[in-house]
C-alpha cells in the first residue's frame, strides 16, 4: 500500500481546517475563555479599588495575568476531545510527521484562544484605564506572547492527557514555565504606558516564540507518545 504524498502545507492546512470546523460546531468552547477573561479582569476593580489612577498602574499586570489564566483554562481544548474519540492515536500511527500535525494543532488552539484574547484586550484595557499609548503594545505582546503560552501549555496538556483530575496538575506544571513571558510582556506594556521604548522586550518575546516554535513540538510529540503508551 502506498499512501498519497502529502506536503507539509497540505497536512498543516488539512489539520487546521478540521480543527476549525470542529471548533465552530461548538461555539461555547470558543466563547468561554473570553468570558472568563472578562470576568476575571472585572474582579480586580471590585477587589482592589475603582480609583482610575491606581487601576491604570496595575492594568498591565492584571490584563496579562488574566489572559495567562484564560489560556491555561483553555488548554484542555487542544487534545482532550481528540484523545477521547481516538483521533490522536490515528495521528500518531499515521505516516505523516507528527511535528507538522502538532504544529497545526497548537496553531489552531492559538487561533481559537490567544487571538480572540488579543483582539478583545483593548476593550478591557479601557475598563482598567490603561493609557491609550500602551494599547498597541498590549495587543502586540498578546499576539506574540499567547502563542508561546499555547506551545508551552500544549506540552503540559500532552503530558497529563488521560489522567484523572488534570486541571490542577496541569496548572502546577505549566504556570512556572509561563513566568518569563509574563515578566517581559507585562513590563513591556508597563513601559509603553510610561512612554519608554519597548523594542527590546518585544524582541525577547519574539525570541521566545521562535524558540518554542522550534523546540516545543518535539517535546509535545514525545509527550503524546508517552501518554498514549507506545
Amino acid at each position: 500500500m502506498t499512501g498519497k504524498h502529502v506536503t507539509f502545507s497540505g497536512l498543516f492546512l488539512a489539520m487546521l481546517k478540521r480543527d476549525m470546523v470542529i471548533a465552530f460546531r461548538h461555539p461555547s468552547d470558543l466563547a468561554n475563555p473570553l468570558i472568563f477573561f472578562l470576568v476575571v479582569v472585572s474582579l480586580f476593580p471590585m477587589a482592589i479599588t475603582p480609583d482610575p489612577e491606581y487601576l491604570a498602574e496595575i492594568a498591565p499586570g492584571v490584563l496579562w495575568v488574566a489572559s495567562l489564566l484564560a489560556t491555561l483554562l483553555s488548554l484542555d481544548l487542544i487534545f482532550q476531545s481528540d484523545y477521547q474519540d481516538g483521533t490522536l492515536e490515528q495521528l500518531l500511527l499515521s505516516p505523516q510527521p507528527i511535528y507538522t500535525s502538532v504544529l497545526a494543532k497548537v496553531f489552531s488552539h492559538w487561533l481559537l484562544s490567544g487571538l480572540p484574547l488579543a483582539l478583545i484586550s483593548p476593550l478591557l484595557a479601557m475598563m482598567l484605564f490603561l493609557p491609550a499609548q500602551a494599547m498597541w503594545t498590549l495587543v502586540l505582546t498578546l499576539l506574540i506572547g499567547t502563542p508561546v503560552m499555547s506551545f508551552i501549555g500544549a506540552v503540559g496538556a500532552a503530558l497529563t492527557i488521560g489522567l484523572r483530575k488534570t486541571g490542577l496538575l496541569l496548572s502546577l506544571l505549566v504556570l512556572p514555565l509561563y513566568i518569563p513571558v509574563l515578566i517581559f510582556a507585562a513590563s513591556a506594556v508597563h513601559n509603553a504606558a510610561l512612554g519608554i521604548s519597548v523594542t527590546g522586550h518585544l524582541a525577547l518575546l519574539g525570541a521566545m516564540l521562535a524558540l518554542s516554535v522550534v523546540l516545543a513540538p518535539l517535546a509535545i510529540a514525545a509527550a503524546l507518545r508517552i501518554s498514549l503508551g507506545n
Partner: protein
Amino acid sequence: MWTWFYRLGSPKWFYDISGRWLPWIACVASILLLTGTVWGLAFAPQDYQQGNSFRIMYIHVPSAFLAQSCYFVMAICGGIGLVWKMKLSDIVAKSCAPIGASFTLLALVTGAIWGKPTWNTWWVWDARLTSMLVLLFLYLGVIALQSAIVDRNQAAKASAVLTLVGLVNIPIIKYSVEWWNTLHQPASFSLISRPAMPMEMWMPLLIMVIGFYCFFAAVLIMRTRVEILEREWRTDWVRSLVKNR
C-alpha cells in the same frame, strides 16, 4: 568499552556496588559536615558588617548549590532514561526530585531567616529568591506528575520530558527574573575565582559545600536502593537477599 555503561543499567549490579560505597560516602559526609559546622559556627571570624548572622551562610550557600545541581542530575538521568531506556536512571531521576525540593526549600527558609536581621524583612521579590522559588515550583510539578501517573514507566518518561523542558527554561527564567529585579548580593563563593572573603571564612564554607555534595550522594544512593528493592521485589536476587537477612 561500553560494558560498564550497560552494567550500570542493571539494578542488581548497582545495588551491590552502591552497598559497598555507601558507608564510605556517608562517613565522609558526616565528618565533613561536622567539621564544617563546628568550624563555621564556632571558630570562623565574625563578619564586620553582619556580625554573627552571616553564619547561616554555611547552610544556605551549600543548599542553594545543591538545589541547582540536583536538578541537573535529575535532568541528565531523565534524558539518559528517555534515550537509552535505562531503568536505573529512571529510578535515580525519581529519587532526585524530593531531595532537590528539600534543598530548595532549605535554601529559601535559611535565606528568609538570614534576610530578617540583614534586610529587615523575611522576603523580598529579588531575582535570586524568585528564581529559587520558581525552581521549587518546577520540582513540585515534577513530583506531582510523578505521583499522578500510576504506570511507573510512563511516569518516569513523562517526568523526564517535563524535567528537560524545565531545564531549557531555567536559564530563561533566571535571566528574565534577574533583569526584572535585583537586590541580592552577587555570588560570594566560587571555586574558580579568588574568594571574596577571608580564608578563615572560606575554608569552612568549602568543607560544607563538599560535605553537602557527599550527603546528597549518600541520600540519593539510599533512596535509589530502596526504590530498586521496591521495584524488583519479584526477582530472585531480591528474594534471596531478604531471606538471607
